[in-house]
């Protein structure tokens, strides 16, 4: 039986999250101290060597990203923590922020020192006002203790827009605009918030930083999958016995996640499908469950690790019913800036609804596949590019559910 490995959740249930002394007594802020004794270049090299890749879904090497901002001269730079976790079925960033907020602040302060920034923002989703309060308390305590030095952190609250999880849309929102993604390049590490070099990293990415510095890059690089080392915080939902969170090394397989940690399918039913990474993730059939959860292994089977949400469906579930709900979600959440997404998500939901109602034919499935393929290539940002993924992967693995609807 595989075992959990709690790095991010090392303090879970052991410290009072709203008492900074508890965090410091547990070894907190040693990583930042160590970072500040290094040169910025060496620090960035250390983070890069650890192999830590972005935990928000894009999987970019964090140290390399920091290097882009470090190498861009500017009078002001920013560190932004993406706490806009909006992927349905995901609550791992909330867990980190509620249970160990100082680890996020420490990670951000390390990044600030590395790139030469004295100002950080945490963009927390509007659904979490109670988390915002906790973050503000944690920031006040850190300031009072003086642990952050001259690095200032401010919390900004989102207001219910899924697209703001996309980093350039998030930046637009902090600037007080509609949260519409920007054309790229230029990328945020060079031209970001108010046109200045900006590092946007996910909550989980920042929370990994303190221990990487304390224990060293080699320690971290040796955990889990080689190309995507470390642990991943996963949240289990749907038809699974243990609807809970787990933190596991990244070489853990999907089958272990669902059956060992999740306790399998309740009610004596059989497994049918799992969607990983949130609502934009691909659907995975039984035959692929022995895949490791790391970014590259998931990519190789046409799926994603994404946010680490694990949505399990048993044999009684109708895939087309779930896809109908998912396509409705994307129609609602498309920001409307680019036409492939604005029109595509609308038509996609319309077509799935049509098939669901029993009026579809095989020709409609071909059209659906064609639309999805075009969107995945033509949409401006990750939202539109990933939106067709549940449709395309279910057409690939669960076509029988669709054809069963034909009259």
């Amino acid at each position: 039986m595989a075992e959990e490995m709690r790095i991010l959740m090392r303090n879970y249930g052991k410290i009072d999250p709203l008492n900074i002394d508890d965090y410091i007594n547990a070894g907190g802020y040693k990583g930042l101290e160590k970072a500040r004794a290094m040169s910025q270049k060496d620090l960035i090299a250390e983070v890069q060597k650890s192999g830590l890749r972005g935990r928000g879904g894009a999987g970019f090497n964090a140290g390399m990203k920091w290097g882009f901002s470090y190498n861009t001269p500017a009078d002001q730079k920013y560190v932004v923590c993406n706490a806009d976790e909006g992927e349905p079925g995901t609550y791992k960033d909330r867990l980190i922020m509620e249970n160990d907020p100082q680890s996020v602040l420490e990670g951000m302060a390390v990044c600030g020192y590395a790139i030469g920034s004295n100002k950080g923002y945490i963009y927390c989703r509007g659904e979490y006002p109670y988390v915002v309060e906790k973050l503000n308390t944690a920031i006040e305590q850190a300031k009072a203790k003086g642990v952050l030095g001259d690095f200032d952190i401010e919390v900004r609250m989102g207001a219910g827009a899924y697209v703001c999880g996309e980093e350039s849309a998030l930046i637009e929102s902090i600037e007080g605009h509609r949260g519409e993604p920007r054309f790229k390049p230029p990328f945020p590490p060079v031209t970001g918030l108010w046109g200045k070099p900006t590092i946007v990293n996910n909550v989980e990415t920042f929370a990994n930083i303190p221990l990487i510095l304390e224990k060293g890059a080699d320690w971290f690089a040796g955990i889990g999958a080689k190309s995507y080392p470390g642990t991943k915080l996963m949240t289990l939902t749907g038809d699974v016995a243990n609807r809970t969170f787990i933190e596991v090394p990244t070489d853990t397989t999907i089958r272990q996640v669902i059956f060992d940690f999740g306790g399998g399918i309740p009610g004596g039913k059989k497994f049918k499908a799992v969607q990983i990474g949130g609502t934009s993730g691909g659907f995975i059939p039984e035959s692929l469950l022995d895949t490791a959860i790391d970014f590259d292994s998931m990519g190789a089977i046409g799926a994603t690790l994404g946010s680490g949400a694990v949505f399990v469906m048993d044999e009684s579930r109708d895939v087309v019913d779930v896809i109908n709900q998912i396509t409705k979600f994307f129609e609602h959440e498309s920001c409307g800036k680019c036409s492939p997404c604005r029109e595509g998500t609308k038509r996609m939901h319309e077509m799935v609804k049509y098939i669901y109602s029993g009026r579809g034919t095989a020709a409609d499935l071909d059209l659906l596949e064609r639309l999805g393929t075009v969107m995945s290539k033509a949409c401006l940002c990750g939202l539109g590019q990933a939106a067709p993924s549940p449709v395309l992967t279910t057409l690939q693995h669960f076509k029988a559910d669709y054809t069963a609807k034909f009259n």
Partner: protein
Amino acid sequence: MADYKEIVGAYKEVPGGLIEAYHALQREFNYIPEEAVEEAAQIFDIPKAKAYGVATFYSYFKVGKRGKYIIRICESAPCHIAGAAQVVSALEKELGIKMGETTADGLFTLEFTECVGQCQATPVITINSKPYEDLTPDKINAILAEYK
């Protein structure tokens, strides 16, 4: 009742302060008064269209009156398969309104929402952002009684 000019004005010098100002308005009124949007356009020196554009882009903002208690029901996939639709029917029946409407006494508004990040216990609703988990239609009455 607080003056919305004062509320919005407090954010004039905050970088990106428009959204912060809208949040402050909603903390006070639970919605954004129509006149406050026009006021915000003046204070931030932006076209009215832009002030409206921002206010209407985000689903948690609402221009114009709504109920004192906003009940949001998640309809994302994990809540959907756990029976969110039955919870919707029970709420509509109990309050005598449809989704998107406000009760005649101005107490409750029903809104759909996407994931609220409490997926360990689906289906979930929130009342003024406070989550209620593992819902079934028979739990609705007792929850609503807390607010009546």
